[in-house]
């Protein structure tokens, strides 16, 4: 088991060297084959390119959620069973993140989904059109945000139609 943990720690060290230790806010290894990073917004693209270089080619998905202080976007990268989750915090007032579709083409759909349900704008995304919700979904209503509880959305929809 320890060899596994040592390998995880090596990955973290290499990433720390790559993007500088101050922008790697925190890391954690809860169990074998799982690593959690949290990275500063500016260093996101470098961290992703570095990890892809390390072999984390498969992007399982991008999770978006509203944490205590602003929106959190988590990139779940995967290499042969080892799941590295990269967390990035985004202020709720100005949720903008650079897109990673140039590095991993498969991310194109996940980013559009986070954009639509959470309101995070991915700059440089080929076409950031809405993805899941119907065409007549009112502007600015992001269902996965805490503010928009079910009653709120119902009220908005009924008022809109």
């Amino acid at each position, binding site marked *: 088991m320890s060899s596994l943990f040592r390998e995880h720690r090596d990955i973290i060290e290499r990433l720390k060297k790559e993007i500088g230790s101050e922008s790697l806010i925190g890391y954690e290894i809860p169990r074998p084959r799982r690593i959690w990073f949290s990275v500063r917004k500016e260093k996101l693209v470098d961290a992703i390119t570095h990890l892809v270089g390390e072999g984390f080619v498969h992007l*399982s998905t991008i999770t978006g959620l509203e944490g205590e202080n602003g929106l959190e976007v988590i990139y779940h990268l995967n290499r042969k069973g080892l799941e590295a989750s990269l967390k990035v915090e985004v202020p709720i007032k100005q949720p903008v993140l650079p897109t990673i579709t140039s590095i991993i083409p498969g991310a194109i759909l996940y980013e559009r989904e986070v954009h639509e349900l959470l309101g995070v704008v991915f700059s440089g995304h080929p076409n950031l059109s809405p993805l899941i919700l119907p065409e007549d979904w009112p502007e600015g209503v992001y269902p996965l945000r805490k503010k928009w509880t079910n009653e709120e959305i119902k009220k908005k929809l009924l008022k809109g139609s």
Partner: protein
Amino acid sequence: MSSIIKIPFGPQHPSFKEPENFMFKVDGEYVVDVTPRIGYAHRGIEKALEDRTYILDLYLVERICGICSQAHTTCYTQAVEEALKVDVPPRAKYIRTIVAELERIHNHYYWLGIVAHEIGFETLFMYTWRDREIVMDLLELLSGNRVQYAMNMIGGVRRDITPEISSEIMKGVKVLGERMEYYKKICSNERTVLTRSVNVGILKTKDAISLCAVGPTLRASNVKRDVRADDPYAAYDEIPFHAVTYDGCDIASRIATRCDEVIESVEIIRYALGHLPTGSIEVIVSRLVPSAEIVSRVEAPRGENMHYLKSNGTDKPERYKVRAPTLANLTALCKMLIGGYIADIPVVIAGIDPCFCCMDRLTFVDVNNDKSWGWKGEKLRRYGIKWYKKQ
């Protein structure tokens, strides 16, 4: 440049079992571009998961998809157990693996019937769905229900495998293995099936990796990646098995991959039944889940199933994200469709075994703003034929 025509492959279409709409740009018989317009079966499950307790969520997660319900519940219960730092008794892990493999057999028989129906092979469709009854009866015997098994519970499994059930499963599984070998022989030698499946819906290895495809679609493009082998869960670390890969990158190799996977599942079930450890099958757990962030992955019949749980100490999850396999295969599907024949669209779409209600849990729409006149239903064959007449 001959006329590019925009054709909607309508939400209501005989070859789709669920509402799904693809907007095709077609240059004569060849597909130039495809944009999926999905979301018809979107039920906002993630929002619903957040305001229900963990016990109620179990049954909501199970009903994300009709066929891969065991995969979703295994993934869910594993996530919650990891958050609770509870270790499930080994016998429960083995039972979970057995039911998961039975469900894989069930899914692949179902899928083979659908593909046979798409290429017009009615007889194979009838035969595969007749043999699927065997595995559904086994599951009913084991769990009390043919489709939504409700076998998993947070902290273990609800029903035990008695010796008679285990011998019954052994008998049924043997028949299933032989029948699948016969179907594999048919699908790889029958001339009419080959003409409709070889070099159809090509997904090269390079594209499969870069577009993050998952499951049999990925393994049929010669990429050896299987969650059961790489990131073993339940009892997969103690059960010897190898991931099946083919290098044909087309529908024929996807058929062969799934046939081999059924034969592999038969071996797994036999081994698991033989080495079933004794002991209890469940552990009583508290209803309040301490706060944690968990990523749990399972190899569903259609591909890698990923759940993300963020718990906050109460009895309701704070955020629960589900990413179904069909969603990952969607970009790969668009790649496959482009450049292919129009007549092959139903087969190629059926090739990735799409489960739109899985995917619609969260899905994609590309509303192109330029003038796209919506034809009811699907008229793309007409343009294919007109192009043929000119040829």
